[in-house]
């Protein structure tokens, strides 16, 4: 997995590419932990994401909780497969998906 990061003032776009699973989720978690300070608008772009496991969902949830306290978070570029995962797990009610 590679993580593309674009920062523009207090706006941050994070785009994980590849597989977000048990092996790679800690990487994204560390990346988010390190870069969320002072961010008020977080966009997670999943356009290039091939696979999302429950460990990846946990990272998204954790980011959502952090952003609840300091601004807004939205998830973009969600393909059909990943949308289904969001719906099945109830994440579609928690996340702002565009």
């Amino acid at each position, binding site marked *: 997995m590679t993580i593309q990061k674009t920062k523009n003032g207090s706006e941050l776009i994070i785009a994980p590419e590849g597989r977000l*699973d*048990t092996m790679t*989720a800690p990487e994204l978690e560390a990346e988010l932990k390190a870069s969320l300070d002072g961010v008020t608008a977080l966009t997670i772009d999943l356009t290039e994401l*091939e696979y999302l*496991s*429950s*460990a990846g*969902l*946990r990272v998204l*949830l*954790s980011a959502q*909780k952090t952003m609840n306290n300091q601004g807004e978070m939205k998830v973009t570029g969600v393909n059909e497969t990943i949308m289904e995962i969001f*719906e*099945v*797990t*109830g*994440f579609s*009610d*928690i996340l702002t998906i565009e």
Partner: protein
Amino acid sequence: MKNNRMKDKERSRWKEFRDRLTPDPMFHETEVQTNRLGALMLLCSGVILVVILILTATGVFPLSGNLMYSTTIQAIVEILILLLICRITKNDAWWLKPLLLIGLVIVYARLDSMLTHKAAILMVIPVVFSSRYFSRRLTVFTSVLSTVVFAISAYWGATHGLINLNIVTFPEGTQMIATGGFLGDAIINAGASDRMLIFNTMLYDFLPRWMMFSIISIISCNIARRGRDMVVSQHEKDVKSARIESELNLASGIQADMLPNIFPAFPDRTEFDIYAAMDPAKEVGGDFYDFFLIDDDHLCMVMADVSGKGVPAALFMMASKIILANNAMMGKSPAEILTDTNAAICSNNREEMFVTVWLGILEISTGKLIAANAGHEYPVLKDPDGSFELVKDKHGFVIGGMDGVRYKEYELTMKPGSKLFLYTDGVPEATNARNEQFGAERMVDALNLDGDASPDQILKNVRRTVDDFVKDAEQFDDLTMLCLEYKK
């Protein structure tokens, strides 16, 4: 009496000596390897000596005859004896390392006495080799022994070995006439004094050589000590990882025993048949199933998947399973069970783990199944005369994800002959080498291969189809399935 005590003392000293030379078990392997290396060095030296012998015999090497032969042959005999000992002991005896080191020092010193300054490097070989035993004491011993033995060989070689022309001094005014041949022979014929040769050799040859040798000795001591540290720390790591592995095996045994895994589970209940299996991808996993009778008429079934894998997931799984079962046994409805479990888990969940849960309670007498779904996969239901189909039920959020979530429940009806299949995402997300997922569609097809089979057989059919699909690719996620057949 006194004599006996002396003997006892001697014996205990001998034992102490022996113990000191016997390596700690963790060094045993490296010691045998080093002995083997020593034997190899001896073999190489023997071959070189034979070559020297041939070259001398054919006159290519201009060494003074008889002495050269006897020294070389003596060295070859020593090498052969040592090699024989190595062979008999299979390089494995506590006394072999001092014997090898002493042997090597003597063999090389013998050569050194003939070749003198031409083969100055011979002196360092035993010390460098000794560092491979990873014992500083042994390297120091070899260093001291080398100093003494090579001093003797230099002393002896000054008058018997190759003459180093650079150190020969003659009294002022000496004239020398050479009539051909080697200069060294001419000098010996001219009557250079032995005292001068010995004195000059020790001072100009041996002393500088010994200085370089002492530097290499220090380096060798350091290598021996560092090598020892590395072997010790590697051994500690090995012990630790073996312990972790055995603990993981134990943990996976405990985890497996937490789930009802004796089938038939309810041999005296003819109204239903239930079968389940869990196959974790790692030693311990985060999936679980559960089923138990709340009372005579109510069977509770759980299928759940904790986020992540390994030990953290397994710990979270244990807690979730117990909280769910406790809430269920209190006679609550599925939605209440999930709502209360979520509240209990969210109250203290700093690691932000979560678990997806499908929970259903079957009223055995009527076939009424009330279920609630906290972010788990769709269940699959088969009517008596129909085929297996996904039930697109309503989903709540995962348990442990967010505080204060309320879950809704829904009702299904099981008719006699109906079957219910529950699973975790490991089944539809099983991935083959081409990175394709098994998918829900293939899973439903596998269920319908023989929809009338027993729950046990249906799980086997799915498992086999998944295995055929995945083939050689590594099992990435846990595979957990449960099948219920309602009979009455």
